[in-house]
């Protein structure tokens, strides 16, 4: 391990350089622009003009995907900070800054997406205002906690900007305080990622028994958020290595995947025991959409467990990547199933996102990737490394 560490990265982060204008960034730009256009339309003509939201489904993919899944996909920064600064695993340090950057955009856009979904969006500040806020609500906890975490993450990430701008004095002073923000940066996601699960607790009967785990929901959402954090670090490290023609970071990712494997086994045990304990597993054998979605979700968790079980598989970049992608799909399905597929507010109500809604979500993802590419090319995020030798 020590050898690995020395071998891996002693280089400080440095801007990647290179051209910003490629066919890929152009495509991302076009997708972002389409989303921007739809959103302008939405703010002028209202939600009904753009979305398929209705009285039975007052929220759709802009909340279920952009906020709930989006913020869980953005847990890379949280998980890396947890490993490096709390469990003192210094060998993962090179992964912190890129993971934090991905989280920064994921969370910021998740926070902004809430405003897109608010009918009377100009009142969004009410939730922060003491006279208006309903302090006993789970939604309040989620809103305040996510907002605070976004601010904390920008502060955590600011050394990258300060280095670029040459503000060494400010950076030195900030470094003395940074431990406080890092601690907050671990505490806050633990709070709101579990609270996103608590949101479903209060829906009670309206959530299908396969996803209504009651008091265990916060734990289930927190465990999968951490799992998704690991998976997204593997995905992001692999994509930036292949995309920017840099050497693969498999040697750092292998021990990471071992932790992920343990957590995945624990999560699956908890999930299945909970279903058995509540007597809900029977509903999975009915011929329904919910049951079908449940099995796809479970497969997306079980296959990576089998895939990564042999030690040799965890050293294979392709298997690590495949497992990470499947876990991301599983974590996404758990949330989509809980918040939309298994959510029934009354007979006769249906929801399927409109084309415009989908394009906004696609545009937001495109914008995240675009912003990531721009930042890593212009600011010191990725560790300086020799060009790929393969």
């Amino acid at each position, binding site marked *: 391990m020590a050898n690995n560490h020395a071998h891996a990265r002693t280089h400080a982060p440095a801007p990647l350089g290179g051209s910003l204008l490629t066919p890929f960034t152009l495509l991302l730009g076009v997708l972002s622009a389409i989303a921007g256009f739809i959103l302008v339309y939405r703010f002028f003509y209202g939600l009904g003009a753009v979305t398929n939201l209705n009285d039975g489904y007052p929220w759709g993919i802009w909340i279920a995907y952009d906020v709930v899944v989006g913020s869980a996909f953005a847990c890379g920064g949280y998980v890396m900070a947890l490993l490096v600064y709390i469990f003192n695993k210094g060998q993962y340090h090179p992964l912190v800054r890129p993971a934090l950057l991905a989280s920064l955009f994921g969370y910021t856009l998740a926070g902004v997406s809430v405003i897109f979904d608010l009918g009377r969006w100009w009142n969004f500040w009410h939730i922060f205002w003491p006279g208006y806020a309903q302090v006993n609500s789970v939604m309040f906890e989620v809103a305040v906690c996510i907002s605070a975490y976004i601010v904390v993450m920008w502060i955590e990430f600011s050394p990258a900007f300060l280095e670029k701008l040459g503000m060494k004095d400010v950076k030195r002073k900030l470094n003395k305080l940074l431990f406080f923000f890092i601690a907050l940066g671990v505490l806050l996601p633990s709070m709101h990622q579990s609270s996103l699960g608590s949101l479903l607790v209060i829906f009670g009967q309206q959530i299908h028994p396969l996803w209504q785990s009651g008091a265990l929901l916060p734990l289930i959402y927190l465990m999968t958020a951490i799992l998704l954090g690991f998976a997204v670090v593997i995905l992001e490290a692999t994509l930036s290595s292949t995309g920017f023609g840099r050497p693969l970071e498999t040697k750092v990712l292998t021990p990471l995947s071992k932790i992920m494997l343990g957590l995945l086994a624990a999560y699956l045990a908890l999930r299945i025991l909970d279903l058995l304990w509540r007597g809900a597993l029977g509903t999975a054998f009915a011929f329904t959409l919910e049951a079908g979605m449940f099995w796809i979700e479970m497969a997306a968790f079980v296959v990576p467990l089998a895939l990564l079980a042999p030690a040799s598989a965890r050293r294979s970049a392709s298997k690590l990547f495949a497992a990470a992608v499947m876990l991301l799909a599983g974590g996404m399905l758990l949330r989509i199933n809980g918040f939309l597929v298994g959510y029934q507010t009354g007979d006769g109500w249906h929801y399927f*996102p409109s*084309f415009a809604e989908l394009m906004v979500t696609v545009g937001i993802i495109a914008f995240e990737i675009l912003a990531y590419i721009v930042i890593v090319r212009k600011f010191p995020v990725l560790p300086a490394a020799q060009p790929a030798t393969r």
Partner: protein
Amino acid sequence: MSETYIEETAEAADKVAGRLGINRREFLQFCAATATTLGLPTGAEAAIAKAVEKAQRPSVIWLHFQECTGCSESLLRAEHPTLEKLILDVISLDYHETLMAAAGHQAEAARKAAMKAHKGKYILVVEGAIPVKDNGIYCKIGGHKAIDMLKECAADAAAVIAIGSCASWGGMPSTDPNPTGASSVGDVLGKPVVTIPGCPPNPYNFLATVVHFLTFGSLPAVDQLGRPKFAYGRIIHEHCERRAHFDAGRFAMEFGDEGHRKGYCLYKLGCKGPETYANCSTIGFGDAGESNWPVGCGHPCIGCTEKGVGFTKPIHQTAVLRGMMPPASYPRIVEEQGKASFAAAAALAAIAGAAAGGAAMLAKNLGKHDAEQQPQQKGE
């Protein structure tokens, strides 16, 4: 029917009426009503009258745990024919915390004495749920925990009857998160008992069960949940006076609207009649006429007798229809709402396909890279 039989019945009725200080007609009406409630054939009212006249007066021990005493109250407030007089005449109520004159140690002594004197012959009636969490410390009477008291009294009882939803399946105290671990009598004793669920249950259902025991020496036939079939064999919706409105698609859409004032079906206001087993729609409450029950008064049924419905589902959430749908030619109860477009479905499928395809291609390329790395790693 022979003349002597009628005379005997009349004689029995006279005796009971004299004993209770009520008139004979009222008593015979009661016998007939009970026989009807039980679904018994003509002539049964005579058997009932005779059984009541003989009045073996079985000893009854009535326990109260986590409840509101509403079950006892509904029994005492029944009006015709002075039901409380009858019930106190046909049974010997040896222990009932609300009604007995004794207090303190005297009360407990009465219970012990009754249990000893009528060992194996007394009827145990339980009202209220039993807390089992933390060793059952959340309900104590005379220093004894509810769970201990129930087990002690049930051991030598001839029959155990759970009255009210709390005793039958946990009822309101067992609502999530159920902080005291409120459990039903059946769960605590680990065996099925006769249950008369309801909040409160109709007093006639309880009385008819007791009278059945007196008349035939056995408890009435029950379903798998221990509910007497004569009272809980059918869904409320089946015999609801507003059923015709349901079938015709005429619904009250909100309280006070035209449909509500005209007495239309309350299904869309959340009536749980279609998933609740009870005879409320046929016998009514409080002896004040058939319109006197929740739906008759214009409020949707909350499903108080049914586990998993009453105190669990939101009151105004629409009920699950159990095996009954109006004919297809009638207006639909539920209008399908919300829209989906083919373009959006196609776009989502394309995105999912592209993501899966991209991931698969990348994994394949990485696989080639792994293959190249493998010999190197072995060499290291």
